[in-house]
């Protein structure tokens, strides 16, 4: 299917919804072509190739709302689907906040024309053999390096996604993006018991930005062998250094409390905190949807609202909630967007190695395992694994421990931020150093 025809399909669906009785409607059509290869050691475990497509429609029937999706794109099926859905919507309760966004909130031409470089034009250039070669390279790099290794599992995937969003108010936007991932997981025998595993890898928009497979392999092996001999230590209050790739977990205690629905439903411990301190002055975060090749980059969000760059937190002070159009109307607040795009942090000057040197007694957390967070109260508790640090040196790996506390206290205790943003995620957290965190162990 050509991109023009998915746009035609979306426009047709909106028109048909209006014809069937909806007062307003949106439609989005997406198609994704993807490939996934998994190797266990040097043998293929899984090879999956697919093309998928879907259509989503949102119906507004005089302030009554419903949303539907289907992967049956045949016109006759869609007609009946839309007709029945419109009839059903009319039975729902009226909700004054249900209407399409004001026209001025849609992206203008300047925004739509920005080249975010999300689409790698060389997508089809790499043949299957070369893709397999990347994975083979991962295995060859590790093979014979350690007798403790049980398996090397390597993953390659790529995708090409095209989409279009059409609103009956006149907005229409298209997206096209590529993605590549290459990861290696190594599992090993620990002579003391257990079979630790760890990994390394990357997710990128453009093939040429992919990490070198042998580099991935070396790091995956090093990370796994580093877990050998892990143990739990005494419960107590320690400094906590969170490695950049795991920063998503503590950040979740802020992000999950900033959403419009969470606020409106009185489920946010950050209600009423706009303009106030919610973290130490070390935390400055910008939501930037315009990062070139960014994994979270976009011209508009799922409601069609124009992308905006905004500093969410400045030196610990909260500047913005993630309010979408619907909850904005419900709370009489100006909408921004309902979901984060790329989160870019003001970084510090020191590397993670330098931060380790500043710690007398602490734990470097490299992995979070389970746990949860209560957005209403800010309470959190999570399992962790990482390394014990004493007098500025990493001593040994630790595991099977928990951290617990309240997000308000946690963020007040942020004492330093590393210079190492994690670029293989839309949430580009640097390393975070927190003071006095409750760890439970023995």
């Amino acid at each position, binding site marked *: 299917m050509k991109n023009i025809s998915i746009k035609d399909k979306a426009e047709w669906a909106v028109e048909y919804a209006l014809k069937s009785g909806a007062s307003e409607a949106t439609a989005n059509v997406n198609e994704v072509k993807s490939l996934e290869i998994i190797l266990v050691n040097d043998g293929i475990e899984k090879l999956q190739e697919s093309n998928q497509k879907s259509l989503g429609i949102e119906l507004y029937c005089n302030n009554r709302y419903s949303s539907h999706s289907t992967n*049956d794109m045949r016109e006759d099926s869609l007609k009946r689907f839309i007709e*029945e859905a419109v009839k059903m919507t009319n039975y729902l309760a009226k*909700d004054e906040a249900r209407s399409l966004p004001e026209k001025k909130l849609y992206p203008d031409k300047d925004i739509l024309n920005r080249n975010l470089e999300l689409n790698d034009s060389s997508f089809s250039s790499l043949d299957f053999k070369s893709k397999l070669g990347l994975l083979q390279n991962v295995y060859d790099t590790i093979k014979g390096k350690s007798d403790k290794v049980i398996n090397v599992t390597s993953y390659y995937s790529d995708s090409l996604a095209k989409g279009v969003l059409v609103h009956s108010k006149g907005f229409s936007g298209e997206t096209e993006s590529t993605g590549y991932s290459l990861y290696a997981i190594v599992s090993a025998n620990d002579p003391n018991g257990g079979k630790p595993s760890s990994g390394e890898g990357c997710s990128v928009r453009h093939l040429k930005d992919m990490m070198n497979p042998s580099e991935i392999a070396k790091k995956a092996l090093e990370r796994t062998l580093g877990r050998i001999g892990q143990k739990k230590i005494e419960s*107590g209050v320690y400094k906590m250094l969170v490695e950049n790739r795991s920063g998503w977990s503590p950040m979740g205690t802020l992000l999950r409390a900033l959403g419009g629905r969470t606020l409106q439903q009185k489920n946010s411990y950050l209600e009423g905190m706009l303009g106030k301190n919610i973290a130490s002055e070390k935390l400055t975060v910008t939501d930037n949807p315009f990062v070139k090749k960014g994994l979270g980059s976009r011209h508009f969000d799922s409601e069609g609202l124009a992308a905006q760059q905004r500093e969410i937190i400045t030196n610990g002070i909260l500047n913005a909630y993630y309010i979408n159009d619907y909850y904005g109307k419900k709370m009489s607040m100006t909408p921004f967007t309902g979901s984060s795009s790329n989160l870019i942090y003001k970084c510090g000057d020191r590397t993670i190695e330098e931060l380790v040197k500043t710690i007398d007694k602490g734990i470097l957390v490299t992995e979070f395992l389970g746990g*949860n967070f209560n957005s*209403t*109260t800010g309470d959190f508790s999570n399992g962790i694994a990482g390394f014990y640090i004493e007098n500025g040196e990493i001593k040994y790996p630790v595991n099977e421990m928990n951290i617990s506390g309240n997000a308000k206290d946690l963020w007040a205790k942020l004492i330093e931020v590393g210079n190492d943003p994690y670029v293989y995620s839309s949430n580009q957290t640097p390393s975070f150093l927190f003071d006095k965190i409750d760890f*439970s*162990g023995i």
Partner: protein
Amino acid sequence: MKKSSIGLAGVLVLPSFLKIHSTNAYSTLNNMKSIKDYYDRFNVTEEMLSKVMSEALSKGGDYCDLFFQHKISNYVILEDNKVNRAYSNVDFGVGIRVLKGDQTGYSFAEEITLANMVEAAKTAANVANGGKIIVPVSITEKKIKNIYPIEMPWEKISITDKMPLMTEINEKIFSKDSRVIKVVISCSDDSNYILAVNSEGNAVCDFQPTGRITANCTAESGGKKETNYADIAGRKGFELFSRENIDFLSSEAVRKTMILFDAVKPEAGEMEVVLSAGDSGILLHEAVGHGMEADFNRKKESIYSDMINKPVAMDFVNIVDDALYPELQGSINVDDECNDAQKTYLVENGVLTGYMHDKISAKYYNLSPTGNGRRQSFRHIPIPRMRNTYMTNGPHKKDEIIQSVKHGIYCESFTNGQVNIGPGDFTFYVKNGYLIENGKLTKPIKDINIIGNGPQMLKDITMVADDFAMTRGGWTCGKGGQGVPVSMGLPTVKVSRLTVGGESK
């Protein structure tokens, strides 16, 4: 199936948003009785299936299967006292898998035509690279017993049937306690039709319904706010909205929320942990279940991979994964690769007796499959997955267990858990519970994570009561990017030592 909801092409059945009102609307049950009905639904014939399978095996594959799925899902929400949003999804397609040894080739088609299926079969066939060409065996229907008959299929239920009952739960919650400030009620249901056919000549069809009702409650007291929820789920139809369930959801949502205002954090560190009967089955799911899925063991990556036929727990510990427990979310009549569903013993009288297998791992171990080959959808390959995992009754009494604890915690409800298969570290998050001090339940506790090591935890189960119960809630298990519905259960159990998140003294 009502005629009015059959698509023009005679293939696609749409979500039934509105009930055609008639006096016997519930009396006609789902009419998808025979495999012929399923062939019609997916617009295929035996001849087409044979053709596609021959193509799939044309490059030397050992085995292939086709998995047809048609799933209609609805999700309705009450928020701020109104049922003011509804969502639906239709998923339709066929997944084609080719095995060559332990290697899998996979593709799928969303529009089911012979041409599309042949194309997908060619792609999946690529995993094989030569070898003897196997000819698919002619297809015979495999008859299965239905362990989840339903009274009122969701497809015969209109939004207007759900709305008053959701409103009733909302009103009940507000009327129970003046501290309630917000309530959200949601109802989700799936009507899932599957047809699996393989090159060994098996064909099997199944209708797998699920329903789940969730009541979320937020309350304010003395300037503090708390939120919690209660839910109920199973392979049920609209009868899930029974009087008893409506009362249970409204009472539980309020009780579990209000108790949080008095809750404290326990002291951080290792202590005795008592798990209440029912929801605490999450302990088994994380600490034991995942590590006993045979794919991890076949690859020697699980902490349990050297433990088969070895004692792993005291002799009163018995753990099973049971597909045939009626009407639970994890119950299945047949697995997603045509294997018979069964009750599988994992630990019998304290000895680890078996793993949970799919076709690939069963072949590796030279055993019969255990019916654990499950998948999220036709877009995914089947892998060993749990169904309903539980521990059977033991010799102790609940009171005796609590009285035996000097300093510990009693865990009652949970939100989520996770496991790291290799080292065996598992966690689960306790939403509600109590401190145990000198043999008595004292202050309530909330929001703490518990972490332990699977095999160590099994050794540390020192008491098992005789009050076995299954969870009533809906659980989705995630593995390898695939979510499947599961259930779990436990009698009251004491673990002599687990690490509890909390405050350091």
